[in-house]
């Protein structure tokens, strides 16, 4: 664990390295800031010493000292501001570099990674973790070094003035840290109880309010309320404890600091009586005694923060270190104007080596043929799409397009040869025009409109408030499901590659849109090799070949009539799904 932390820190340093000039500047400024900050009270103490009593004030000397103080303050202010500014700059730049790198990695990670990790987790690495890291880094920059410097500087100055009183301060300050640590340790269990209870409450709220309609439909409001109040009253008890005991920390440390202050006051006064210390120096000591403990408390905060930051950075680096998709062979072929002949030979594939999925799949598709893939939900129909598009690579066997193994074709040209319409209608945030032109960013307006007309989308787009320039809101909230589908079709219609992969929507959209979508599909498929994940009987029957899948396996293939005659799974499926019940 420790070693891992060190490795992470080293890695963070490599990102900071390019800003080393600025880091050096920041450190210099920190030294200046701390030194001048500590020097000012001394000067003021000297000034106080010049103010003795009635008629005994050395005004020329006082003026000279105050001028010096003013100069010192000006230097402190300026160097502190510059230091803060430089620290901001370094931190945010470093963070930006890391964030961009993490995102760029996302674009080259295999789909396997994206599919098998919670999106929320990946997002939180790129957003929340990096944010946490930036906060920790910034705090580390601004407070850790200056904090340590302040402690050392204060000690140095104090020893120079009076070692005895310094000893008093040094001996007493640990008490404050000890008290804070003691309370934190004691309250930890209370806080974890609080957060557990809070979690329980949130889970109940999630469940009951999340499904409030069901709760109401079954008249369970009273029961829910009872359960809620029971947890809530437990939360009340443990929150009160946690909050109260943790809030002791500040007054307690303040109290200990007060003790230090009193001790310094008494010891200093004794020294002053003996003539070992001037009144001005005593006031310096009192100021220092007040300041001295502060960096300690801050540093302990910074250390926690830094540890969090390192843990967060480690999570981000994990993402950055994920293996990217294998590089393309140097002699990869550019697939241009594919004829659309697809052959699967002895294809084996599984997502999880423990669970065998596709085994020895053979399929020959001639240019222009339509292949329908059917089967119950969750049978792995989309696996075939994943393999054809090379979102995943086969475990063994080969897939050939126009005779060449798709692993020897550049991914870009292979994917460019397919037009894909998925059931999940993903649209990016932006205008309708940008979305249609997603596959062909340099398309002219005429081309875009022509494609929209072909896909039967022109009509509803024209009725939108800003037509083609209407901005699609997040998640496409201003569009109906059917309209989104039509836009996805238009997007492919604009490029119209030689081969198609279509995923029919399972839930029917309103009848009229449905008919439009089917017409658009039919127009696209004319003369093109098409793979269709099919739910509509008409699509299935018109296919040249039907692949029947079950539990990830392809168990039958043939035409509709052949399969019916065979009386196997397809026939059963057909009879239960489509035959009158």
């Amino acid at each position, binding site marked *: 664990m420790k070693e891992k932390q060190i490795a992470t820190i080293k890695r963070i340093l490599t990102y900071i390295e390019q800003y080393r000039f600025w880091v050096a500047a920041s450190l210099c400024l920190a030294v200046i800031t701390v030194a001048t900050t500590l020097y000012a009270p001394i000067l003021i103490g000297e000034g106080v010493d010049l103010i003795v009593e009635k008629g005994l004030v050395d005004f020329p000397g006082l003026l000279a000292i105050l001028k010096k103080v003013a100069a010192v303050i000006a230097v402190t202010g300026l160097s502190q501001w510059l230091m803060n500014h430089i620290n*901001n700059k370094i931190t945010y730049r470093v963070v930006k570099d890391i964030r*961009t790198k993490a995102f760029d990695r996302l*674009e080259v990670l295999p789909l396997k990674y994206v599919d098998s990790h919670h999106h929320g987790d990946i997002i939180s690495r790129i957003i929340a973790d990096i944010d946490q890291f930036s906060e920790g880094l910034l705090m580390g920059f601004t407070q850790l070094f200056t904090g340590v410097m302040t402690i050392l500087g204060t000690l140095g100055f104090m020893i120079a003035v009076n070692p005895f009183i310094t000893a008093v301060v040094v001996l007493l300050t640990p008490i404050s840290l000890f008290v804070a640590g003691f309370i934190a340790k004691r309250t930890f269990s209370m806080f974890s109880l609080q957060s557990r209870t809070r979690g329980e409450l949130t889970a109940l709220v999630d469940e009951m309010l999340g499904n409030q309609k069901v709760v109401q439909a079954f*008249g369970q409001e009273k029961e829910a309320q009872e359960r809620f*109040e029971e947890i809530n009253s437990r939360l009340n008890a443990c929150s009160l404890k946690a909050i109260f005991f943790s809030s002791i920390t500040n007054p307690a440390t303040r109290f200990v600091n007060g003790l230090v202050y009193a001790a310094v006051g008494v010891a200093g006064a004794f020294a002053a009586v003996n003539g070992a210390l001037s009144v001005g120096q005593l006031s310096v000591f009192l100021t220092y005694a*007040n300041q001295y403990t502060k960096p300690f408390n801050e540093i302990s905060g910074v250390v926690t923060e830094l540890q969090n930051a390192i843990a967060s950075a480690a999570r981000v680096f994990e993402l950055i270190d994920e293996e990217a998709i294998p590089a393309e062979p140097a002699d990869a072929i550019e697939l241009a104007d594919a004829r659309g002949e697809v052959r699967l030979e002895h294809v084996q594939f599984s997502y999880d080596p423990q669970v065998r999925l596709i085994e020895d799949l053979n399929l020959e598709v001639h240019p222009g043929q339509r292949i329908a893939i059917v089967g119950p939900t969750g049978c792995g129909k989309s696996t075939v799409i994943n393999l054809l598009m090379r979102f995943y690579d086969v475990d063994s066997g080969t897939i050939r397009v126009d005779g060449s193994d798709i692993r020897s074709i550049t991914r870009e040209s292979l994917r460019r040869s397919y037009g894909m319409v998925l059931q999940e209608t993903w649209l990016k945030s932006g205008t309708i025009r940008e979305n249609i032109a997603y596959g062909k960013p340099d398309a002219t307006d005429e081309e875009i409109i022509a494609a929209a007309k072909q896909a039967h989308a022109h009509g509803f787009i024209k009725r939108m408030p800003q037509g083609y320039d209407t901005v699609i809101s997040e998640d496409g909230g201003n569009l109906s499901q059917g309209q989104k589908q039509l836009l996805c079709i238009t997007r492919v219609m604009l490029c119209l590659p030689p081969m198609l992969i279509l995923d029919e929507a399972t839930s029917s959209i309103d009848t009229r849109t449905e008919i439009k979508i089917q017409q658009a599909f039919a127009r696209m498929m004319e003369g093109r090799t098409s793979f269709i994940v099919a739910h509509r*009987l008409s699509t299935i029957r018109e296919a040249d070949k039907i692949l029947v899948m079950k539990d990830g396996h392809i168990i039958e293939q043939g035409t509709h009539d052949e399969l019916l005659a065979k009386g196997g799974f397809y026939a059963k499926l057909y009879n239960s799904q489509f035959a009158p019940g």
Partner: protein
Amino acid sequence: MRELLKYLKAYRKESILAPLFKMLEATFELFIPLVVKQIIDVGIGRGDTGYILRMGGLLVLLGVVGLAASLTAQYFAAKAAVGCATSLRNDLFAHINGLSYAEIDRLGTSTLITRMTSDVNQVQTGLNLFLRLFLRSPFIVFGAMVMAFTVDAKSAVTFVVVIPLLSVVVFGIMLITMPLYKKVQRQLDRVLLTTKENLEGVRVIRAFNRQNDEMRRFDGENSQLVDMQVFVGKISALMNPVTYVIINGGIIVLVWTAGKQVNAGIITQGAVVALVNYMSQILVELIKLANLIINISKALACAGRVQKVLQEKSSITEKEHAAVPETAGPDRNGQVPKVEFCNVEFCYGDSREPALSAVSLKVKAGQTVGIIGGTGSGKTTLVNLIPRFYDVFGGAVLIDGQDVREWPLEQLRGRIGIVPQRAVLFAGTLRENMKWGKKDATDEEINRALSIAQAKDFVDEKGEGLDLLITQEGKNLSGGQRQRLTIARALVRRPQILIMDDSASALDFATDARLRRAIREETGDMTVFLVSQRAATVRNSDVIVVLDDGAVAGVGTHKELLESCQVYREICLSQLSAEEVQ
């Protein structure tokens, strides 16, 4: 805010004592520089070590009393804040549970959950801080000034200049940076959105080979974020240096004027030290105060949002003397329709488009009604009006001849079994889940419902019977299993009216058919509403209602509708082959 203040009233004693004790602590703190002054002037001045020790003892005593006062204050503040939050949470939960579907739709479930959890927590934290610090910080700032005046009025004039100047700087910088930080947050949200979009659209992005463009776009947004962060950072980086310069500038002036006063014999050297100490005390507290104001304004915003929810009134209210009609119960003569829609009009929220218009329909007891239509045609809306989840805008819905608005809600809903579209189960045992339908259901009743719902087989297979543990939302079951259990849950209460809202969609057609047959056989006089998108599911119903865009496009049997209803024919033909349709 008034409604929320009533929660504080229950903790009147605590919420008065907490700030008072806090002030007491502050007062003791303010005495410290005076004691130090005495040590310098009297103790050192006269070389009286005994006096110095006594004063040192006084400092410790002040500390002890301060600590005691502070702890008392923290306790009262925590008690009031936590107590208020607890009662607020209870009331809020009860209130939200009393809202009708219309309010839930408008407010949104996730919003309500946030109000219930993080918003109330924020209110609690804000209240706690408020009770503890709101009096303390201003008290110390002004107290320090007042004490300075008691030491020496002429020198204390510096305070009158420094305090407003500091306030302007501290609050000014906060006021300027707060909206900027919000902007930064919005930009961060945009970066998040781009990331999310790229994850969700990963297949499309790669299919169209747009990875490099997406990287460029992200880099652009990320750069913009950094520029904003650096800009706002530049401003807030001013805070410490500027306040430092002002305070120390104040000290320079203070020492100079105090020097003159000492020279004139008006004050002592110790007084100068005391004045300097008072000046240093101000800064820390002023910054604390500014932070407090930010925190409290956040908490107030949360409180405002919570308040808004509390002000929501349920649109469904029970008539005061609502009573069960005499004709209630199975009406075997079929004289009174079991369920009747009379020219029903309905709109969702602010939408101008009606979700249902001019719907009229009579259903006899024991009939099975199929409701079919595309997404958004109003199927769910129609059945949601029967248990009065929403109130109609025009016309009326009658059960057993009485308007649903005249029924006592509990009686009305007790007669209806609902299987919602989303198959939701709750964490707990299967038995507990089934008892939602009927509190005192016996195992026998439950088992019977399970077998009608075609759920008995897989429940038996799991071998734990009714003690089968179900995780939250029923995630340990498949979609089809969940659906069958939700059907069983509705059947347990042997409802007079059963509503199945597209609740067989995850079942294969064979199970679906068996289920419908079982319902028909086992529950003869139950009136059943079957909502579906599948023609095969509704085709054998006694009556089929075809909805299109909120209006009834046709009512009749399968055969009748095939001849008379264009929309129905289209639906059937898109799902079934021509010969199957017949």
